């Protein structure tokens, strides 16, 4: 993190540090201000940030416009939700199961979809997500379209200590830790050998193939990793909400994640977090002042598309960020 900070220069480094400190201190600040109702909003932003960052990995850096990313978030949510409903509360089990399930599905979905290109890739990924959506609707045993309520949460035991994600603070810090790790990993990935290869593939995969990269394999790895991270976000979301329904898998959810990524800044490390935070805060603030909050949200998004081509992070950085072409 420090090396990344050094690379970015003084003003941005202190902004990053400030953000990190605020994030760590947030629960206590909220409680001091009597605003602890907003703790769940903060946690929701962090969880969406993880999901959006996972999409940014495959969309921004991979150049793969996956319109079915909600499938992986949903898979993580349902895997964890079903395990809890069956009485299995171990957090490590949930994590392991989530990673295995999402990796398996990502291998299959990616394996098939990556053989297509352009708009057909978009439609195939969408199709797979919709298939899972309808499947979730049909399984009445786990709620079907009514959704699944889970009263308990994931439990982690760390050497004698019990971490129950029912505790809002525990959930927040665990999610924050996951986000921090993801962002750090992403920051290290971009300038790495694999990252540079990925960018070459994204910009012109015919040329990359000609040079000798196994483009299909690289893309598949990205797809699977992104899917697994999305699944973790899903597992955290079911812990946050205590509820999962097929709507998590609907294409409009994939759309929302995409909007967050594009809004925040495609192919930027902070894009996912930025987009998630701004979109959710906008909805919250506008929603409490007016019944028609979505109207103004729409205009803001439109403005960003028309005038801030590289998203909000691009706007902040003022020049093309490293790694974006």
């Amino acid at each position, binding site marked *: 993190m420090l090396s990344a900070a050094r690379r970015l220069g003084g003003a941005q480094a202190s902004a990053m540090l400030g953000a990190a400190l605020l994030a760590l201190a947030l629960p206590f600040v909220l409680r001091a201000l009597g605003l602890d109702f907003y703790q769940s909003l903060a946690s929701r932003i962090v969880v969406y940030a993880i999901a959006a960052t996972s999409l940014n990995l495959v969309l921004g850096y991979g150049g793969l416009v996956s319109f079915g990313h909600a499938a992986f978030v949903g898979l993580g949510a349902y895997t964890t939700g079903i395990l809890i409903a069956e009485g299995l509360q171990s957090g490590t089990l949930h994590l392991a199961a989530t990673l295995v399930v999402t990796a398996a599905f990502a291998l299959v979905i990616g394996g098939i979809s990556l053989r297509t290109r352009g708009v057909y890739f978009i439609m195939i990924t969408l199709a797979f997500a919709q298939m899972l959506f309808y499947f979730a609707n049909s399984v009445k045993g786990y709620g079907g379209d009514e959704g699944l309520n889970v009263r308990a949460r994931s439990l982690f035991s760390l050497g004698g200590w019990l971490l129950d994600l029912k505790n809002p603070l525990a959930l927040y810090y665990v999610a924050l830790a996951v986000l921090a790790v993801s962002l750090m990993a992403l920051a290290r990935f971009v300038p790495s050998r694999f990252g540079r290869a990925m960018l070459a593939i994204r910009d012109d995969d015919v040329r990359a193939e000609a040079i000798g990269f196994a483009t299909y394999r690289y893309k598949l790895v990205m797809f699977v990793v992104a899917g697994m991270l999305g699944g973790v976000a899903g597992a955290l979301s079911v812990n946050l909400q205590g*509820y999962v329904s097929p709507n998590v898998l609907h294409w409009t959810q994939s759309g929302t994640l995409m909007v967050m990524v594009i809004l925040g800044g495609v192919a930027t490390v902070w894009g996912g977090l930025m987009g998630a935070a701004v979109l959710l805060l906008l909805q919250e603030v506008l929603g409490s002042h007016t019944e028609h909050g979505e109207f103004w949200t729409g205009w803001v998004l439109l403005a960003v598309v028309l005038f801030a081509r590289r998203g909000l992070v691009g706007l902040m950085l003022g020049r093309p960020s490293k790694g974006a072409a």
Partner: protein
Amino acid sequence: MKSPTVAAAVAALLAGWLGVLPAHAADKVKVGFVSTLSGPSSALGVDIRDGFLLAVKLNGGKLGNLPAEVLVSDDQFKPDVAKQLFEKNIKRDKVDFMTGVVFSNIMLAALPEALDAGTIYISPNAAPSSMAGKDCNPLFFAVSWPNDAYHEAAGQYANTRDLKSVYLVAPNYQAGKDSLAGFKRTFKGQVVGENYTKLGQLDYAAELAEIRAARPQAVYIFLPGGMGINFIKQYVGAGLGKDTTLLLPGFSADQDVINPVGAAMAGLFNTAHWSPDFTNLANVKFVAEFQKEYKRVPTLYASQGYDAALLIDAAVRDTKGKLEDQAAVKKALKAARFESVRGPFKFNTNQYPIQNYYVRTIGNDGKGGLVNKSFNEPILKNHGDAYVQSCAMKG
């Protein structure tokens, strides 16, 4: 450098946030009202809200002897939205009671927010079998009727009409399942078809074709709100009304359905716990005031909203406004010492009502329109529910 602009924007957002906070004052009753106020089935939520607010207004803006603040919000027929609204009312606004939800699936998703926080929930409509039986909870009070009840009454009525074969349709969710289970519990004839449609579905072409092929003597549906309106219109459009009797529970034959469907509803029989023509004093006042205030005939949903407010009013009054003593509040709620518009009201041990159910028919209101008229003799008397035995609360 652009980041100061963004930082300023974030600061502005935070400021906007903080400006939204209401100050919580003591010495008043705060009620969080979350209901479906938009979409094809919004008429139900709107009526419950209007009935509830009318009761508060007629009481001088008070519940018990304390000024009442009712925070109304729209769940948009979405369980996740309802959950967030519940959380907002309970954690931010610190309400004393939650109420309002129309649909069982939405209520079951949002209810844990109230139960986990120890807030009392008064249901003016949804009353699923799970909460009557194994999941019963001292914080949950149903002021309407157990989900199965109207359907048990209808099944019994079908028996008295000597109907031998029936085709059943309901939406595929908890209340839908409860409804047809209720009908089958009392009905003695043969069920020739049982079709669960998607909740919120509006095009019934496929289902109507199936019904036609099955050739039943009667069709019984549970399709509240917009679903019922569309089904009945399409049922008539498909020409099924001629050979098949259509039996309805009260919700699919109340004013909110009669008005859009129109003349096709005349003469249809339905079952309910309440009818606008009940002659007890509380009801006469309610119907007159409702028509004066809102210029329309109240539905049974409005009567339930009204009764919910009266129940809370009685509890606050009986505990002399000491809402912090929740045990006393719950005891006062259970005693239910209020004049309900349906007549005598009492709670079962599982905090679901024990009451009469009547048959109604749709007839002329004397002004060129249609309205429900009830038969005096109840089809089910002092009827509770089939799940009370599995409830751990024993009075």
